[in-house]
C-alpha cells in the first residue's frame, strides 16, 4: 500500500497547480479503476463461477435497466413510491412536531416520550412493514404509515433539540414586550423549529425510503418495492439488481443534490462550521 505520495503533507503544502491537477486526475483514475475492477470481477464471476441465472452479467442488468426505463415502468413506480414517502413525511411531521414541541418545552413530557421515541427510532424496519400489513393489508396507506412511523422519532428528537437551543433573550424580550403566546409561537418558535424538522427528515430519508420499499415488498400494488417483489416472484435476479441500482442511484442523487442543497439554504444563517 503506497499511500505515502497522496497522503504526504509536504505535497499538500506545495500549492503548485500542476501537482493539484495531477492529483485530482490520479484520484479520478483510481475511482474509475475501482469501478472497473468491480465490474470486471462481477463479469468474470458471472461467466466462470456461477450460472447466469444466479448472477447475470453487468450487461444483462444494464439491458434490464434499459427495458425498465423504456417501458415507462421506472417513472411510474418511482412516482408512486415518492408520493407515498412524501405523504408519510407529512404524517410524520403532523405527529412528530407536537411531540417534539412538548419534549422541548417541558421536562415531564420529555421524560414521558423519551423511551417510546428512542425505541421507535431503533427497531428494525421489517416491524413497520408488518405493522402496516396488519392494519391496512395490501394498500396504499401501508407504506405511508410505515414511513411516518420510522421518521417521526427523528423529527421529534430534532425539534426538541432545536427548542433547547432557542434564543432565551428573544423569548424574554417577547414576553417583556407583551407578545401573546400565539405570536411567540408564530414568530419565534416556529421559525426556529422548521430547520430542525427538515434536519429530521434529512436524517431519516434513506431509512424511510428503505422502509417504504420493504413495506411495498410485503404488500402493495405499485411502487419500487412492489416491482422488486415482482422480480423476485419471477426468479429474476437481473430484475432485482436492476431495480436495486435505480434505488441506489435515487438515494445517492437525493442525498448529494436535493437534500444537501435544501439544507444549505435552510441553514444559511448559521456559521459555516456548524452546518458540517
Amino acid at each position: 500500500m503506497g499511500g505515502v505520495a497522496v497522503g504526504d503533507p509536504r505535497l499538500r503544502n506545495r500549492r503548485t497547480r500542476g501537482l493539484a491537477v495531477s492529483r485530482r486526475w490520479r484520484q479520478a483514475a483510481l475511482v474509475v479503476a475501482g469501478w472497473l475492477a468491480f465490474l470486471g470481477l462481477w463479469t468474470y464471476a458471472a461467466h466462470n463461477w456461477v450460472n447466469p441465472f444466479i448472477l447475470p452479467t453487468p450487461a444483462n442488468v444494464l439491458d434490464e435497466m434499459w427495458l425498465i426505463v423504456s417501458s415507462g415502468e421506472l417513472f411510474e413506480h418511482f412516482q408512486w413510491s415518492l408520493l407515498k414517502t412524501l405523504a408519510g413525511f407529512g404524517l410524520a411531521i403532523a405527529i412528530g412536531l407536537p411531540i417534539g414541541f412538548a419534549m422541548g418545552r417541558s421536562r415531564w413530557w420529555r421524560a414521558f416520550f423519551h423511551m417510546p421515541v428512542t425505541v421507535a427510532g431503533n427497531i428494525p424496519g421489517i416491524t413497520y412493514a408488518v405493522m402496516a400489513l396488519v392494519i391496512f393489508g395490501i394498500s396504499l396507506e401501508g407504506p405511508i404509515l410505515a414511513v411516518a412511523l420510522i421518521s417521526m422519532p427523528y423529527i421529534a428528537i430534532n425539534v426538541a433539540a432545536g427548542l433547547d437551543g432557542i434564543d432565551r433573550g428573544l423569548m424574554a424580550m417577547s414576553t417583556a414586550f407583551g407578545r401573546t403566546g400565539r405570536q411567540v409561537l408564530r414568530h419565534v418558535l416556529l421559525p426556529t423549529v422548521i430547520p430542525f424538522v427538515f434536519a429530521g427528515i434529512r436524517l431519516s430519508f434513506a431509512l424511510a425510503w428503505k422502509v417504504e420499499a420493504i413495506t411495498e415488498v410485503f404488500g402493495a400494488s405499485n411502487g419500487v418495492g412492489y416491482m422488486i417483489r415482482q422480480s423476485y416472484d419471477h426468479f429474476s435476479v437481473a430484475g432485482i439488481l436492476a431495480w436495486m441500482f435505480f434505488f441506489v442511484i435515487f438515494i445517492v442523487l437525493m442525498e448529494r443534490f436535493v437534500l444537501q442543497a435544501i439544507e444549505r439554504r435552510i441553514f444559511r444563517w448559521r456559521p459555516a462550521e456548524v452546518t458540517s
Partner: protein
Amino acid sequence: MSAGTAPVERPRGGLIGFAASDRGAQVASVIAALLFWQLLGSGIDRVPTPAEVVDFFFEQASNGVLWAAFYNTLDNFIPGLAIALVVGVALGLALGMSSIVRALLNDIVVVGLAVPGVIWALLVILWFGFSWKAPVTAVALTAIPFIAINVSQGVRGVSRDLMRMSKAFGVPRTKQVRQLVLPSVMDYVFAGFRFGVILGWNAVLLAEWFGGRNGVGYQTRLFYDSNDFTGFVSWVVFFIVFIVLVDRLLLERVQRRTFRWREQGAAKLKGGA
C-alpha cells in the same frame, strides 16, 4: 414500550409528587402505551390485546417453539454478525488509512449503504436457496458497509499529529494500527456494530420470512399465512422486544463499561508522560 412483561397497572392514587417526577412520567408513558395498545386491540379485529399476546407468549414458550425459533435465528445471526464485524473493521481500517483504497472502494461501500436489507434478503434466497448460507450472508452484507463507514470515519478522526509522529519515528504499520488507530476507533467500531446489530436483525428476519425453514422470521410468516393474527402480531412483538432488550440492556451497558477506562486512562497518561 416494554411490551413483553405482564401489563401490571399501578394503582393510580400515587403521590402527586411522584406523578410529576421523571420517573412518574416514564411510568405514565408505559401505561399510556399499554392503554393505547389495548384500545387498538379492542378496536381493530386483527390486532390482539396485550393480554392475548402474553397468553400466547406462555403458550409458545411452554411448547418449546419459542426457544427453538430463537435458537435457530441466533444460530444464523451471530455468525453473520461475526463475519460483518471482521470484514467491516478490516475494510474500514483500509478505507480510513489509505487514500488509494478509499478512492478505489469508497463508492462501492456507499452503494452498499444504500441497498436495503430486503433486497439482500431476496437476492440471497435466489442465490443460496433454503440453506443456512442465505440468512448468514444477508446479515453480513447488510451490516458490513455500516461498520466499515463508521470505522473509516473513526480512523480519519485519529490525531494527525500522532500519526505523523509515528511515521517520522518509523513505527511499523502493524504497530501503528494496534497501538494508535485501533484504541482510538474502538467507540466507532462499537457504534457501527450496534447499528449493524439492528440492521442485521432486520435482514435475518427478512431472509427467514421469505425463504427460511425455521427461525423467528419463518414462524412469524407461518402465522401470517394461516391468517392467525394473534400469533402473527405476537411474534412481531417477540422479535421487537428481543432486539430492544439486546440493544438497551446488553449493548448499551457493555459500551458504557468498555469506555470507562477513558477518563482514568487519560489521567494516567498525563501522569506517566
